[in-house]
């Protein structure tokens, strides 16, 4: 797969990362290197191997359905830049 500068810009856009033209070109070179690596690995026949969804072969532990958290809004909001009426305030977002 060949990556273009516009692909890099699209990915940056999705990730909300601002990059300029030079950074995009630089990133293209780095990402292409990673893609080459993947391409090399794809030569290995993995058809008989089950895809791994986690690096450790252990399974998920479950917790009982019980409320264990108490209201600590005041504490959590003490580090927020701006709060009002119990709400966290953020720059206006209207789609």
């Amino acid at each position, binding site marked *: 797969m060949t990556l273009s500068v516009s692909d890099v810009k699209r990915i940056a856009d999705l990730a909300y990362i601002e990059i300029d033209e030079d950074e995009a070109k630089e990133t293209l070179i780095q990402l292409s290197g990673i893609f080459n690596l993947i391409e090399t690995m794809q030569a290995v026949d993995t058809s008989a191997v089950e895809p791994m*969804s986690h690096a450790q072969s252990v399974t*998920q532990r479950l917790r*009982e359905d019980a409320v264990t*958290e108490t209201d600590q809004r005041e504490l*959590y909001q003490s580090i927020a830049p701006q709060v009002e*009426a*119990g709400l966290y305030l*953020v720059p206006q977002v209207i789609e």
Partner: protein
Amino acid sequence: MQWEIVIGLEVHAQLSTQSKIFSGSSTAYGAAPNTQASVIDLALPGVLPVLNKGAVERAIKLGLSVGAKINSPSIFARKNYFYPDLPKGYQISQYELPVVQGGNIHIQVDGTEKNIRLTRAHLEEDAGKSLHEDFHGMSGIDLNRAGTPLLEIVSEPDMRSSAEAVAYAKILHALVRWIGICDGNMQEGSFRCDANVSVRPHGTEKLGTRCEIKNLNSFRFLEKAIDYEARRQIEILEDGGAIRQETRLYDANKDETRTMRTKEDANDYRYFPDPDLLPLEIPQSWIDQIKQTLPELPQARRDRYVSAFALSAYDASVLTSSREMADYFDATLKQLPAQAKLCANWIMGEISGQLNKEGIEMTACPITPAQLAALLARINDGTISGKAAKTVFESMWNGELGKNVDAIIEAKGLKQISDDSAIEKLVDQVLAANAQQVADYRNGKEKAFNSLIGQIMKATQGKANPAQVNAMLKKKLDG
């Protein structure tokens, strides 16, 4: 050209757990903003999600109820997008290997049974809420809802009309409440529908370009939104245009759908397995254990009502529209076996009507199944007429005389006259006083018969047993 409408539904059912899917915060509705948002829900650095067993259990319950496959292992994935009410920058959802795979829901529309296939049902967390009222040009974020467990239930595009879509949504809505995994409160957003709608020329196979209508929170809106959307698409196609794949919103005030976002600016969610969560193993022993706790399902009960009590398919489906109603019916019938139709009629008629009128739930019904059975027993043994029973019912509903059926009948003098000699005396009196009508009847005027019945009933204030009066009068006139 004849068009065919193709509909698939995605339903988000909020699971009725006490705590959130990945944290120990409460899920109670209506709390003050951010008082139920812990470090995990706020996505502070370094915290890890721990999966709620109750959420998984509820997903398995649904899977078992629709005959689906339960995947083990099942995998959680990150769905990436940016929005301030999603502080992690991704929603934990499932992509490959959801807990529930496949399954079927049977619906009935206009007396015809139809099978709707399910694609999957997966667990995910809800996002928080953004409040766009003016906070000095800022938006307010409430994260109480963030991390609330949802089960997204996805159907195949098997529905062909808004009526079928509503029937499916209603059956699913009844089912999640029946098995106790979701409270089904649509006003509070516990059960929300997204509809995928496309149209194609009748008789063709290829699916048309679809539009998704988001967040329909009532059955009526679901129906109207689909009808509007299908009309819109057909008009465009008939004018030679093309449908653009997009997400649309339904505006209930204007009864129309409008563009929310198009495919071009659709998010690429870049799903990948969440490294914070290990594969979820669901041992068969756990599934078997959950199976033991499942109640008799609506479909099975419907079938039983038809086969064991000879009720019509319609009656059976109304009675099983909620578990509370079906339980009420069963409890009434237990007191009055062999009177299934009488019990069904009164529960679907008087009881449901009165509950609806007063806006109360079956569980809060002022008349217990035993009390209703006591009333119906008096109709059955001829003590009171069906009409008088309605008067007794009203008194019971209002709590008169300790809801004691016999005491109310006595106090109101509603006892039916069923004594043959008393009825004969009455009939003779009325015949003697209405010689003209007797003559009319004997001259072939059938109508005169009903008039005579009316006179007799009037003379007894409606208390004479109508069947006996009828037979006696016939005997006297014809015999």
